[in-house]
């Protein structure tokens, strides 16, 4: 089996700027980031098929605007920004299509979870996902990035355009609300 080529971000960015090598380089970007972006998107949209569509849109958007990426920020930051925007847009569109209010968001996400054939969590995992779904959008985003991806606050700050202090406060509130929710539901 051929050894997988090591991913060198600086080299890939250099190749992305060259018309002759940009497509191959973007293939490397997809290979390197698809998994981590998928899980971030999946935790926001819940359903696997929806996550697949949003991930596809994320890479297409990144590819068609690759000329705008000048290497000032990290590639991962730029991709996460696109992925999060796409996820939020998707969830809002879906809510609008189903004519839901903000209060219905939690039940909408829970329904998504229960109808998803690619979710096989036990009772505890369902409860945790319900608790996360009960959070406001920004807190849900911060909680997912910190709890599951263990993302540092400074990187999160670059992606979300929010101060580190505000993100820490958001995470703190999210944890308290989840603990309270899980305490009440048993």
């Amino acid at each position, binding site marked *: 089996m051929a050894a997988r080529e090591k991913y060198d971000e600086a080299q890939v960015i250099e190749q992305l*700027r060259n018309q002759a090598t940009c497509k191959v380089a973007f293939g490397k970007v997809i290979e390197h980031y698809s998994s981590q972006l998928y899980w971030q998107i999946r935790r926001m949209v819940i359903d696997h098929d929806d996550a697949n569509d949003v991930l596809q849109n994320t890479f297409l958007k990144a590819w068609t605007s690759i000329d705008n990426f000048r290497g000032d920020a990290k590639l991962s930051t730029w991709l996460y920004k696109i992925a999060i925007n796409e996820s939020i847009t998707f969830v809002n569109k879906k809510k609008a299509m189903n004519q839901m209010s903000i209060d219905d968001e939690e039940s909408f996400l829970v329904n998504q979870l229960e109808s998803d054939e690619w979710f096989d969590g036990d009772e505890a995992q369902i409860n945790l996902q319900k608790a996360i779904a009960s959070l406001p959008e920004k807190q849900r985003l911060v909680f997912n990035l910190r709890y599951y991806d263990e993302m540092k606050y400074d990187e999160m700050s670059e992606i979300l355009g929010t101060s580190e202090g505000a993100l820490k406060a958001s995470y703190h509130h999210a944890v308290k609300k989840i603990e309270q929710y899980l305490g009440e539901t048993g």
Partner: protein
Amino acid sequence: MKHEDSTILNKYGKDSGFKVPENYFADFNKRMADMLPDVEITPIDVKPTMWQRVRPLVYLAAMFAGVWCMMSVFNMLNGSGDMNSVRAVAEKLSDDKGNVEDFIMSGSVSDYDILNYEDSVAMSNEENVSDVDQSK
């Protein structure tokens, strides 16, 4: 150190219960790479700007100016330094020389002094002669 999320972490862990179909990521990567449309990449203009070219020289000049300023301030604060003494003496000499030259150039003052001197000498001589005559 106890993390604020340790209660959730201990009880629920990090497995969210979400799954993906087998070989999903390998298939996705291939499918995605195949569907990328052609795009036009604009090469980045790497020609340096005027400021980027002169910046090292400006920084160097600023550094030298800073060092010169520091040395000036240092010398000012230590006024009794050797260099200052030499400079002060040189300035004093220069001033004295100027006064002497002024004095030489001013002829009327010199003539007046000379006349006064001659008058006083003449008067003194006359007094001496009259004293000698009286004693005779």
